């Protein structure tokens, strides 16, 4: 993060009310704190000492094993998915200049969902890698359908129109997923994937998914400066010498990776990609060189928080994490719609 000190120069063109690096340090401290809390609290009560031993020693006991094999992969998954969804949402909002862009709202999640159902139905015994690939393809198809509908009509890319197209396409794709599930009598398997949230996340799943999310996030960071220019105005971006088609194509692939991998890991999860970038912009401004790294931190914190609430609010039952996120996200969505109508039109 060597570039950070450029933003913190004394005579600087950035407004620096609170030192930017301080904001990132606070973010990281909050992340570590949230991670510790989510490790300690849950159906099986454990102590902070157990957590410490599970992470940094080779000591074995029942509660430590629960932490290592159940809770730790789950919380790592929460952080990965939170970061992936937040970054993909930030990229989508930047490229489309649509404040309502979110992989869950623009057909990517439902596309991955439908592809997952179809692949489970047609390829019995499909392995996790196959499912992941199916999710990528599905996410791409969903996105292309939504933006295809937008492209048909002039002005179809307006924020609300695209969200309407997203809602219609999502309803269609969910219906396909349900239909396939019922027809092939695999509804239970499908919903176990798509509505299961973080339950039962294993280390082997993480091993499969992490490289995709990792690469996606690294590429997003490398292209963050291009994204800032692109988010300003496309003609300005061309004038400044950006290869806009190339940049947008790479970013599209990154979004597909991040959103598809998230669905393969936790199933449906709307609103994370919508909420986090808006919160982050209020903290670090409109430069994607700062928005992307801060979205990684904030997305991870949000998912840890939602998962911890889901696990503890109604012990011994789990409240689905997607429901927790939706309860937080919906009011947020409405606020952005109200504000977005004025600011972005």
């Amino acid at each position, binding site marked *: 993060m*060597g*570039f950070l000190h*450029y933003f913190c120069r004394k005579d600087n*063109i*950035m*407004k620096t009310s609170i030192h930017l690096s301080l904001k990132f340090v606070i973010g990281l401290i909050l992340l570590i704190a949230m991670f510790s809390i989510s490790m300690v609290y849950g159906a099986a009560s454990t102590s902070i000492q157990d957590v410490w031993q599970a992470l940094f020693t080779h000591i074995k006991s029942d509660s430590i094993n629960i932490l290592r094999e159940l809770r730790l992969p789950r919380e790592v998954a929460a952080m990965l998915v939170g970061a992936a969804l937040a970054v993909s949402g930030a990229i989508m909002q930047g490229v489309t*200049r649509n404040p309502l862009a979110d992989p869950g709202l623009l057909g990517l999640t439902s596309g991955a969902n439908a592809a997952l159902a179809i692949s489970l139905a047609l390829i019995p015994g499909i392995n996790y890698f196959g499912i992941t690939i199916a999710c990528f393809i599905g996410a791409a198809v969903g996105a292309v359908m939504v933006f295809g509908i937008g492209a048909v009509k002039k002005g179809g890319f307006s924020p609300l129109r695209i969200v309407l197209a997203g809602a219609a396409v999502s309803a269609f794709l969910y219906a396909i997923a349900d239909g396939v599930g019922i027809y092939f009598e695999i509804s239970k398997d499908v919903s176990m994937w798509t509505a299961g949230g973080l339950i039962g996340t294993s280390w082997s799943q993480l091993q499969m998914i992490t490289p995709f999310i990792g690469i996606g996030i690294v590429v997003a960071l490398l292209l963050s*400066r291009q994204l*800032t*220019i692109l988010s*300003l*105005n496309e*003609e*300005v971006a*061309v*004038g*400044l*010498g*950006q*290869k806009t088609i190339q940049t947008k194509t790479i970013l599209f692939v990154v979004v597909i990776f991040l959103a598809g991998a998230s669905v393969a890991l936790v199933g449906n999860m709307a609103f994370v990609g919508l909420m986090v970038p808006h919160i982050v*912009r209020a903290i670090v*401004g*409109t*430069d994607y*060189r700062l928005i992307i790294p801060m979205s990684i931190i904030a997305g991870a914190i949000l998912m840890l928080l939602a998962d911890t609430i889901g696990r503890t609010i109604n012990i011994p039952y789990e409240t689905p994490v997607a429901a927790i996120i939706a309860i937080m996200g919906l009011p947020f969505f409405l606020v952005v719609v109200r504000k977005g109508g004025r*600011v*972005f039109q």
Partner: protein
Amino acid sequence: MVRLYTDDLSIGYGEQLIVKDLSVQIPNQKITTIIGPNGCGKSTLLKAITRIISHHSGAVVLDGKNVAKENTKILAKKMAILPQTPESASGLTVGELVSYGRFPYQTGFGRLSKKDYEVIDWALQVTNTSSFKYLPVDSLSGGQRQRVWIAMALAQETEIIFLDEPTTYLDMAHQLEVLELLQRLNQQEKRTIVMVLHDLNQAARFADYVVALKSGQIVKAGSCEEVITKEVLRDVFNIDAEIGIDPRTSKPMCITYDLLKGE
């Protein structure tokens, strides 16, 4: 020798051609203004010359090279574009926005060099926007905002600057302010300026070279005395214009006009 020209340029969206076989030479270090009625293809022409949209056939040539094939980053060091009414720069400060003009000179994460800072400060100074440096762009008035966007184009340090209707939505005083700024840049910094203007009298007053377009073709190109005439305006705008001489600038001006009847 003319550095920038188009050669039989045709531009169209889909099947329909908006500009047909257009050849125009842009004089170096002069102010060139493109005029014409709505839908005549003047903005389209500007966008095609600056590679924002691709053209159908023909070529745009800059320094002997085909713009369509030239490296876009090299072009960004030679020509800057200010699109028509850029969207709001939500949340950006003036300094940040102007710093993006340095984009073609940066690599990687784009840390600004000492030179970059100097150029940014210079661009702010020339456009008289230094005092807004730390203010959000959105908090400025229309005229101030336009000057800030021009500062960004200036920070690009290009010899040619294109502007698409830079005076739209500005009141009379602010229109003049922007045009005088461009004139200063032309005279003092020797920048070549190419712009689309709606107002004929402004075009006559500030342009060294006027290109009058109609239906995607040039009706007349030349000095303002050659182009701002009764005949040309009749052909281009379908108006019966009364041309006089501006008592202050001695440039031709359209004093009054009527719509042509019976055609």
